[in-house]
């Protein structure tokens, strides 16, 4: 257990050397793959290429929110404010990628469905997810980051928000798919994809997940340093008074 922790610490120490170039190369490869290598989709045309970003972004967003959930439990349980920093960082990245999912979905939906937006089950639940964690970020940004009580409040909200996701999904699915739909939804990921498309999708998955990971690490570090600076300032002020 101890050696695992030590290895993890050592690997984490390499983050600035490993992450930026890996992310850069993976992103470049993904773009080349999506634009050049992957074949043109027969029915949907060029716009289908957006799914090499769209699908991985959705997965990255869910992963980020899962990190928020786990860190929030840790905030309540371990009373360690370092987890709050990670939760805030992951929530920001999750909201970013959910926004990306909604935006790329709309860009795809306009030519294919003939509308930017529809109250479809999946779209609705993604939007609600976006709103829940935007609310979390708003609440956390309105309170002092060193305020432990607000951190605990934020953690409780994040936990409830995450646990609400299955209930939201359940409710919107009953609401929508029991209805006849004008457009039958079928994501490319659900169809049998040709080999080269699938390979590019996997490449995109790796690239986006690495990007999300790098963002979370970067934000955690900046937040941590900002918190530290704030604490030092408070300590200095107190010394001036004393």
């Amino acid at each position, binding site marked *: 257990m101890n050696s695992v922790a030590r290895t993890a610490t050592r690997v984490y120490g390499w983050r600035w050397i490993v992450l930026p170039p890996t992310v850069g190369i993976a992103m470049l490869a993904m773009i080349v793959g999506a634009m050049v290598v992957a074949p043109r989709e027969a029915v949907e045309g060029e716009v289908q290429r957006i799914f090499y970003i769209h699908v991985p972004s959705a997965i990255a967003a869910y992963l980020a929110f899962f990190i928020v959930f786990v860190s929030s439990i840790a905030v*309540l349980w371990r009373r360690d404010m370092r987890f709050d920093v990670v939760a805030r960082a992951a929530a920001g990245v999750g909201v970013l990628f959910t926004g990306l999912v909604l935006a790329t979905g709309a860009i795809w939906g306009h030519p294919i469905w003939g509308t930017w937006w529809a109250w479809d089950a999946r779209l609705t639940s993604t939007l609600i997810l976006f709103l829940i964690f935007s609310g979390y970020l708003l*609440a956390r940004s*309105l309170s002092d980051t060193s305020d432990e009580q607000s951190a605990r*409040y934020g953690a409780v909200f994040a936990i*409830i928000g995450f646990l609400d996701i299955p209930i*939201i999904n359940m*409710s919107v699915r*009953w609401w929508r798919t*029991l209805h006849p739909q004008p457009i039958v939804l079928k994501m490319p990921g659900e169809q049998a994809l040709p080999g080269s498309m699938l390979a590019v999708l996997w490449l995109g998955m790796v690239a986006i997940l690495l990007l999300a990971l790098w963002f979370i690490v970067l934000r955690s570090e900046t937040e941590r340093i900002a918190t530290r600076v704030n604490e030092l300032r408070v300590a200095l002020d107190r010394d001036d008074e004393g």
Partner: protein
Amino acid sequence: MNGALTVMRKDLVLLWRHRSGWLSAATFATMSVLTYSFAFDLVTDDVRPLLPGVLWVTFLFAGIIACSRSFADEVEQGTFDAMLVAPIPRSSLYLGKAVSNLAALLTIEVAVMLMATILFNTTLLTAELAFIVGVGTVGYVSLTTLLATLGSRVRSREVLLPVLALPLLVPLLIAGVRATGGALDVPNGDGPWLLLIVVFTIWSAVGSALLFPMVVEQ
């Protein structure tokens, strides 16, 4: 248990003394139904299918307004700390506020439904609807009361509370509107809406009561 009852009775007395506060939420709610009815009547002859949506949106907003100050006075007067140093379970503090908020909201809802009965020319005070609205109210009041622990700690909490609460309440909104529509014979899709209301209510009541002590711990 005794402690919880004592807190609850105190909160009900305070609810009565502070009635001007939440009665303004009641005024807001009836005004909102009145305005909806008037505005919809301008564009369509049959306003009845819109009624479930009007009711639930009004309930949720009235709930947020009425619950938002739940803990603010306690925190400002220091009585919140006074209760925390007393030998009672933390969750009884939550229970007292949730029950008094529930009483306020049920009063508001009866007023709104009487108003809607007249304006939308529909019988609303039936056992089925009372069940749907009653259970659903427990669901949203328990969640909104928990979120109101934000108390006086955060600036612009009046804006923040709806932003935080409404997305979480979407399942209840969907199920409530659909179930109410079903009870009023408004054509809509089938679905286990009552079950969803009950599931949501149990989830939010149990979850909130368990998480409340975590928020007040320092």
